[in-house]
């Protein structure tokens, strides 16, 4: 990221010995700059050059990993501002905040419910990443009681929030062996907070209400030996958080500006109402947060936020696909209908989920449409009568059914004529356009 090919070349032995497999040191340097080879491929590089190259090759946004009891949440290591330039890598962690002013039973119940929440989206099991515990006063006993209550209900990674180092110290004592996040360091407490983070292997949030202030504190903490930092630019409004998030990401990526080369934490939970909280959280997902702290937990909001996070962090080069083949739904028999769809995950799961929840048996043929939706694949010529016929023959579905009926997606009704020609001994039926209407269609007409 940081060094150009020429800069790297200057650090190499410049003997052109070819041991790396490249004709010249310069050729090797260029490949290294493009991150297509590893430095280790040159056996002759000096220790000093190695150290310089290692420093320069550190990711522009440091990878921060929170861990507890087998759970891990990672943020950072991002390399682009826009997902189409490559992809976004580490999905921001979603955390639910509780305050130590709440009764411990209430905390335990709220955390248990949120901890147990799971939702399925295109075959993926989505859940919350962890919890934040905030001290509202200065009583270590109250704070540790709250942390204890959370730990009784969940083993997921924690964020401890207080600007009082004594409270944070008390809290950290309960989390031996974990890598939590502590929040946080400000101009008045940064030395003590930094030392606590170092002692306990915790990551530390740096809080300041200007980029100057953040960079200043981050630099001092780094010099003190605290490597794992997270930035809180104190933006709580939609406009300011977009600006500051963008500026921090730009400085890190474009200028390799180390003092701000860390993930950002966002606090949508500070919004005045749950609707604005959801909007702020959605922005944080798309525009660069690494950790997101919410105050309200409701399935109807968590689910859309988690889906948005899956969508934004999908690699634009690879549509999410399922394996082409025959899928058996609700134990189909020889009389059950054969449905045809494409191997785009969203398409497959829309259809499979509908049929499954209807309780009606069916064979689902998933044709190889290169991971595209029905209409996209049709428009791109990847889901035509010929391809469908090939799947039907290739997967050997004819051996499994006695009644040869195929149901096409309603959106590609135009294919039915050609398909009849391709598969003369099959009855071709056109199904509804949307999968939601499939169960009714199957009950009434199949």
């Amino acid at each position, binding site marked *: 990221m940081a060094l150009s090919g020429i800069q790297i070349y200057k650090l190499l032995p410049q003997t052109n010995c070819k041991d790396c497999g490249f004709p010249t040191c310069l050729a090797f340097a260029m490949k290294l700059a493009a991150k297509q080879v590893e430095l280790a491929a040159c056996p002759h590089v000096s220790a000093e050059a190695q150290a310089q190259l290692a420093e320069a090759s550190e990711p522009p946004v440091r990878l921060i990993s929170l861990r507890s009891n087998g759970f891990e949440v990672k943020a950072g290591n991002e390399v682009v501002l*826009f*997902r*189409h330039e490559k992809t976004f890598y580490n999905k921001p962690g979603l955390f639910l905040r509780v305050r130590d002013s709440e009764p411990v039973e209430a905390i335990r119940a709220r955390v248990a419910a949120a901890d147990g*929440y*799971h*939702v*399925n*989206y295109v075959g993926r099991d989505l859940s919350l990443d962890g919890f934040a515990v905030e001290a509202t006063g200065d009583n270590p006993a109250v704070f540790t009681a709250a942390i204890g209550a959370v730990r009784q209900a969940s083993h997921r990674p924690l964020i401890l929030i207080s600007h009082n180092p004594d409270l944070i110290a008390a809290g950290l004592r309960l989390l031996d062996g974990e890598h939590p996040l502590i929040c946080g360091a400000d101009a008045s407490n940064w030395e003590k907070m930094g030392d606590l983070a170092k002692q306990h292997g915790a990551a530390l949030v740096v809080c300041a*209400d*200007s*980029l*100057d202030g953040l*960079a*200043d504190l981050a*630099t001092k903490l780094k010099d003190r030996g605290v490597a794992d930092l997270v930035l809180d630019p104190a*933006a709580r*409004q*939609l*406009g*300011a958080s*977009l*600006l*500051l998030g*963008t*500026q921090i990401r*730009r*400085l890190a990526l474009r*200028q390799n*500006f180390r*003092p*701000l080369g860390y993930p950002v934490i966002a606090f949508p939970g500070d919004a005045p109402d749950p*609707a*604005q909280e*959801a*909007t702020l959280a*959605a*922005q944080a997902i*798309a*525009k660069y947060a690494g950790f997101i702290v919410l105050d309200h937990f*409701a*399935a*109807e*909001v*968590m*689910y*859309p936020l988690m*889906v*948005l996070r899956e*969508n*934004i962090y*999908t690699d*634009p080069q690879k549509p999410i696909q399922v394996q082409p083949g025959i899928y058996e739904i609700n134990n189909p028999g020889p009389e059950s209908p054969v449905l045809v769809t494409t191997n785009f995950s*969203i398409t497959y799961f*829309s259809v499979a989920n509908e049929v499954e*929840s209807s309780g009606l048996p069916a064979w689902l043929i998933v044709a190889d449409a290169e991971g595209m*939706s029905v209409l996209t694949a049709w*428009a791109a010529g990847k889901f035509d009568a010929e391809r469908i016929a090939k799947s039907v023959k290739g997967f050997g579905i004819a051996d499994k059914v006695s009644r040869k009926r195929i149901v096409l997606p309603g959106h590609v009704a135009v294919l039915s004529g050609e398909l009849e020609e391709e598969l003369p001994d099959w009855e071709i039926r056109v199904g509804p356009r*949307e*999968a*939601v209407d499939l169960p009714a269609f199957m009950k009434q007409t199949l």
Partner: protein
Amino acid sequence: MPVQIPKDSWAGSVRTVTLGATAAEGGTRARSVTVGGQKTLPFMHFEQVTPHRPLVAIEIKDRRPEDWSPLLLDVWGDAMGDPAAWAKAAEQAGADLLVLALSLTGGDGQPTQPQAAVAAAKAVLDASGLPLIVFGPGQAEADNALLVPVAEATKGERIALGICEDKNYRTLVATALANDHRVIARSPMDVNLAKQLNILIHDMGLPLDRILMDPTTGALGYGIEYGYSVMERLRLAALQGDAMTQLPMIVTPGFEAWKAKEAKVGQDVPEAWGNWAERAITWEALTAVTLIESGADIVVLRHPESVRRVRQAIDALMAVPETA
């Protein structure tokens, strides 16, 4: 430690497009609206002033739609049976402008007649002073049959006619030219296809400041990432100076979101999806806000509560923070 904040300065800017004509401008609208004009990526106020805020349009129909979610039928109630009443209700709900989407068939199951389409458009214009966009039913022949008479009957109102696609833009562009209207150019999520269509339309003689482009989007969970990225790419291209991408963008998150099962239905869905009404509104609002942050200038919505939330988000995004 003073941090030098890098500012992008761009060669290009987005054009402005004005919809609606007041009496002074030869129409009957209470006011006109203007979108576009950006010289930076969305809401980067520290680089340049954002001259026009993104707008929220509410979609209404010429007759009560049969396939809309029960939640929408509940919230708009009887107004849905009468385009004039629905237009008034939409204005009340905070619309900056209206989209009248014509149905393919009338209540009798027969194709919508041109007179009926004209009557609906006129009724909406009489009932509300907001600028208007009219969408055809989305089938080439029906669109031409209905939109041409509508365009003629509303000459001078500066409505926007939708939707022009590559196979079906000539008739609509010609009638927009003849009647002082604007058009919406829709292409399937591809920078080059969007440019191509804009060129074709512009080549017919329609000035670029009378074209809005719709790069197509998908709903949250159903392809939003493609719409999001193509809009970011189009806006970057515009700012880099590519003239044929320098048009304001309109997208239809309302249509897309309410097609999704998560919004549309409340029964036979996983318990983990939570409360239906709140989920549906969140689905629409988050789809819209995410697209606004990637460059949308007009979002077309369906539910009054998502309109309220999206407007609130636009207010917040337009406020210039002290830190900037």
